[in-house]
């Protein structure tokens, strides 16, 4: 087995172990928040999820631009895997955020710029994933995906800006949430981000390899079919 093959598994394993260590740190090392209590600990999961989700979408954008400049199957595969994992992480971000919001603000949802952006991003990239089902030639489907990958990312800052303008009309449900973090809290948060990063990279690589195998199998099947048709004609 080459390193390339076992690297994703190693990364996922390292990520898993680090995340487990992170859990220990979250509950044993990080101090309990004075006002919110234990519920604040969701933050250590929520933050890495949302950061890596955004980073995934940024990678989708980069790969899409690169694909249009110089088309290559691998770029499309990376973009696709990143989009899938980005949607997964955004879903988890929204869920953990809602759980926290219910406890901290008393509501499941508020139209805060960050929440709105996350939700709209989730919608856009879920639609992006549906592009795979289009009845197009493989090459054109990749092209379409790259175009949508660029348009989608260009929309993200605009959504954020518009939601901020919108909110300034309505009174804020909560004041600025980013109160200063204790140094221990900051350390644990950064550690969680790092641990999630390993896990994220492992997931992306596994997904890339899966998609590669899938493409290969489909290629083989279609060549086989062509050959059968040709022999039938003979």
């Amino acid at each position: 087995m080459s390193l390339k093959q076992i690297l994703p598994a190693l990364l996922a394993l390292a990520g898993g172990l680090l995340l487990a260590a992170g859990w220990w740190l979250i509950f044993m090392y990080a101090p309990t928040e004075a006002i919110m209590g234990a519920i604040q600990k969701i933050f250590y999961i929520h933050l890495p999820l949302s950061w890596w989700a955004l980073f995934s979408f940024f990678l989708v954008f980069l790969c899409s631009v690169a694909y249009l400049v110089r088309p290559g199957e691998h770029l499309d595969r990376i973009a696709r895997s990143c989009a899938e994992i980005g949607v997964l992480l955004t879903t988890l971000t929204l869920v953990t955020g809602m759980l926290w919001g219910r406890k901290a603000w008393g509501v499941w949802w508020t139209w805060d710029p960050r929440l709105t952006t996350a939700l709209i991003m989730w919608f856009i990239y879920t639609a992006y994933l549906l592009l795979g089902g289009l009845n197009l030639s493989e090459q054109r489907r990749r092209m379409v995906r790259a175009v949508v990958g660029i348009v989608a990312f260009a929309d993200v800052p605009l959504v954020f800006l518009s939601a901020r303008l919108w909110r300034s009309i309505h009174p804020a449900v909560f004041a600025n949430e980013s109160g200063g973090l204790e140094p221990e809290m900051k350390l644990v948060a950064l550690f969680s981000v790092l641990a999630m990063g390993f896990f994220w990279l492992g997931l992306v690589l596994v997904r890339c390899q899966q998609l590669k195998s899938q493409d290969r199998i489909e290629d083989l099947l279609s060549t086989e079919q062509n050959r059968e048709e040709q022999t039938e004609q003979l």
Partner: protein
Amino acid sequence: MLKLALALARKDLSLALRGAGLVQSILLGLLLVFMFSLSQKTGSLASGQMAAAIFWLSSLFCQTLVFNMLFAFEETQGARTCLLLSPAPVTDIFLGKALAGFVLIFLAQILFFPAIIVFLGQTVSQSWPMGLLMLFLADTGLACLGALLGALSQGQTARESLLSLLVFPLLAPLLLAAISVFAAVFGEQAGEDPTSWIGFSAAFDAIFLAIALMLFRFVYTGED
């Protein structure tokens, strides 16, 4: 340089106005206005904010139908390759489609607006010139994204619904701006100066017009 764009827009407009295409989108929009008025209690009036939201949702549905129709013209006749072979830049096709779409959406809105006033009991306040400017900016944005992504949906139902799935969230910021300004037009107390929304919409249009001009040639190709 814009000769093809204008010719294409003229062709599309005459086709759209002759057939039942535009009538269908207008009817859907009017139907939406009626359906949304069901959410009101009998006797109570819709708020300006709600009326504005319904107006723009109707326009949005109209936009997807319009662009599905505009791109279906070439598909049903198998004329896409001919269009691409003509000695004019592909961006002209984009501009032509966007222009035709803009005009069609605007025509539909001319009917939606009085319908909102009548059915939802609205009055127009003094800030209507701002509303007119917003209408122009928002329609530009609708036309830009519609013409860029409409090329994806070429006649098939599955693709048509996919277009709305993609376009609706992408247009969300622009719609937020349009709804806020139109709420003020319908007499709602605006907390924020509407000019900031106008500026935002202009920026939105500029960004997506530039992106669409760059990317359209990748979407609209001779391949199937």
